């Protein structure tokens, strides 16, 4: 069974709920090595997205993802706005106007999202950013899709890998984003953007079950 526009919209509403629940945690993580706005920024963006989806759910998964992209770009600000916005935009482009997404399309969308984040932010694995969560997630998703897994399986693997990837940022010294200003003092803290990426993928995986 594939993933329709309505299911993608439902999944994004679930993400909005999870972001709201974790708003304070993300703010706290960002306060430790950044400027304490990450949870607030994402919450503002996903709240706006839910209002937009309440008005109208576009007809295809790609159109829903595109609507998410433009909302996040125009409401979030900060580093996370353009980065998550670009991720959703590239994912939307990668799925085209398909009416339903299969496992391969979902894995492809995740890969496109990662490529978008890297193109905008120029971060590599090990720089202590969301790229550290998204990169292993994409690899895990692709390998599950390649071996015949379904959408739920692809997203579950991506979520698992993203959570480990996020944890791996703890000992790192940040080389990108605000945390890099702290130099060595950024080590010993979980990167807020990597954490939010893991939360987002875990929520998508939950909605796909």
């Amino acid at each position, binding site marked *: 069974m594939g993933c329709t526009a309505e299911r993608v919209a439902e999944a994004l509403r679930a993400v909005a709920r999870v972001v709201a629940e974790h708003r304070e945690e993300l*703010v706290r993580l960002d306060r430790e090595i950044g400027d*304490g706005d990450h949870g607030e*920024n994402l919450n503002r963006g996903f709240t706006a997205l839910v209002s937009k989806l309440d008005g109208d759910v576009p007809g295809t998964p790609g159109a829903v993802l595109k609507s998410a992209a433009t909302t996040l*770009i125009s409401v979030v600000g900060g580093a996370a706005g*353009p980065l998550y916005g670009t991720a959703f935009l590239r994912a939307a482009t990668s799925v085209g106007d398909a009416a339903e997404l299969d496992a391969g399309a979902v894995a492809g969308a995740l890969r496109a999202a990662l490529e978008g984040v890297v193109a905008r932010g120029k971060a590599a694995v090990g720089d202590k950013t969301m790229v550290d969560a998204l990169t292993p997630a994409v690899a895990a998703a692709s390998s599950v899709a390649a071996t015949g897994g379904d959408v739920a399986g692809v997203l579950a693997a991506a979520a698992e890998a993203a959570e480990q990837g996020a944890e791996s940022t703890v000992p790192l010294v940040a080389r*990108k984003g*605000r945390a890099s200003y*702290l130099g060595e003092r950024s080590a010993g803290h979980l990167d807020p953007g990597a954490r939010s990426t893991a939360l987002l993928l875990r929520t998508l995986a939950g909605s796909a079950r």
Partner: protein
Amino acid sequence: MKKIINDPATVVADALRGMELAHADLLDVQYDPAVVVRVDAPVPRKVAVVSGGGSGHEPLHAGFVGRGMLDAACPGAVFTSPTPDQVLAAVQRTNGGAGALLIVKNYTGDVLNFETAAELAAAEGIEVRSVVVDDDVAVKDSLHTAGRRGVGGTVLLEKIVGAAAERGVDLDGCEALARKVAGQVRSMGLALAPCTVPHAGEPSFTLADDEMELGIGIHGEPGRQRVPVRPADSLVPALLDPILGDLPFGAGDRVLLFTNGMGGTPLLELYLAHGIAERLLAERGITVRRRLVGPYITSLEMQGMSLTLLKLDDELVELWDAPVRTAALRWGL
């Protein structure tokens, strides 16, 4: 947290409403997306000088909107860069046909959002250039990191480039001038007490009574080093020496010395620190030709200060002295 606010979610818009009333002769405020523009915008055939950034640094940037400085400012949420929509709206409202120069402080969020806006404006046929300010010597510069932060130098750059644009200098000229200023300005700051972002509700870091943070930015982030507090006579060199060594500044140089307050430090202390900095510069044979003292680029109620040094030549002195009429800087008009 004790603040004179109603709701953390609406502080920026609520403050803009007051600002609009306080300075109706200078600026117009548009709310969705939030943009502050000079009353007479667009000025025909003048390069539009546009800046913006997170709120919480007042008077930067909206306090510098007006004749001889900025055409528009885009206030983001507190300590969060503005969105591309805001920047695009600012460019559209102020473009007088000579294009727009975007002044961007070097933070990942600001750079990415302004970059997206510049692409959108270019797609509408508006010529846009961007200059990134990265004057904070506390951050080690490297090709592999986000690079240095943009701090106090931004104020000086906005004044000088704003003056040039007002005189009719074209987009190429304004861009070249902005790069020149960005290339010869350096800053460093310290904090004695942290600040509290309204939606966070708690201070961004905690300091014991006898500690301070050296090398802080303007977003309540901790600095590079936590050190014991000490008397002003040894505190001021801790900011000045890294600045002087970085450009470097040396004997015979003429400079503008900007002693900035972070929001919670009284002028009494700023003047005291400024006096020490002037003495130290004189001892090194550096001539202070212009000065600015006060809280111009702040970090909410943070207690602390920063020093900024700009190397001057006759062109820059003249542009600094040129008339300006904004909420926070006003002379000659």
